[in-house]
């Protein structure tokens, strides 16, 4: 049942006889992931629409954001995703210890993201920037808040993945859950990859 296709193969697009196409996780997961991606797409577009109604206000407010925290958080999430995808490969190769270490690393990254977010929110509020200040800050807090909600769910998922990584062998269903959970974490990363430039750079 364990396919050799992915793992450490570099340049995996070559149509060799072994490279069968498979759905990461299971098909059902993608209903949820795509659904979330599409709805967040609508949120992004809504933000752009609101920006078009007051571009100077948005640009002005954008400059009051802590761009360094935003950048740091982006790099943190990217790194956590690397840890997660490597951990999944480790689980496939039955390298339990490595997988657990990598997932723990990803978990630390996730908690660091939450920590920095808390610092950022506190800093903004103490500078007088609250959601009711103007449309930019309203959407800033709502979009990052919704994303943070996803991060918290993701942290819970990572903890569950950690428990799964301790098993010596995983059934097909459990492996599908592990891959699906990993994809959810990558979704959290993906959404932030759009949110960071959208809120901090482009507004």
């Amino acid at each position, binding site marked *: 049942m364990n396919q050799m296709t992915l793992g*450490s193969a570099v340049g995996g697009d070559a149509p060799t006889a072994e490279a069968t196409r498979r759905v990461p996780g299971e098909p059902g997961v993608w209903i949820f992931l795509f659904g979330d991606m599409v709805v967040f797409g609508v949120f992004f577009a809504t933000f752009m629409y609101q920006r078009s109604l007051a571009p100077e206000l948005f640009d002005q407010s954008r400059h009051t954001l802590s761009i360094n925290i935003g950048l740091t958080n982006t*790099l943190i999430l990217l790194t956590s995703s690397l840890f997660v*995808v490597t951990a999944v490969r480790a689980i496939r190769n039955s390298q339990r210890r490595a997988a657990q270490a990598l997932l723990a690393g990803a978990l630390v990254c996730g908690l660091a993201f939450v920590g920095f977010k808390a610092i950022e929110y506190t800093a903004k509020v103490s500078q007088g920037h609250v959601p009711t200040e103007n449309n930019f800050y309203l959407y800033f807090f709502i979009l990052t808040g919704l994303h943070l909600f996803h991060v918290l769910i993701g942290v819970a998922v990572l903890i569950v993945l950690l428990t799964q990584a301790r098993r010596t062998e995983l059934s097909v269903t459990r492996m599908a859950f592990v891959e699906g959970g990993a994809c959810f974490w990558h979704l959290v990363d993906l959404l932030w990859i759009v949110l960071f430039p959208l809120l901090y750079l482009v507004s």
Partner: protein
Amino acid sequence: MTLSLLRARSTFVWLALVAVTIVSWAVGADHGVGSGIAVVVLALAAIKVRFVGLDFMELRNAPLLLRGAFEAYWITLWVVLAGMYLWL
């Protein structure tokens, strides 16, 4: 053992993503309202989305329907957001 695991495509992709992130930040941090730079920054974001999907979510080897849907997603995202930025 962890080191050998990291000698893989996903690590190279990560390095590229980090580099692109820093470039977007340097380029986009101060560009004023309504400039073309924003379109570039959004394009860079869309490309990053693509690589997270293909190499982290492992969609590169997914059935064509799923992969196609994902490619359509990031392209649509960029077109719609850049379009709204430029023309609204």
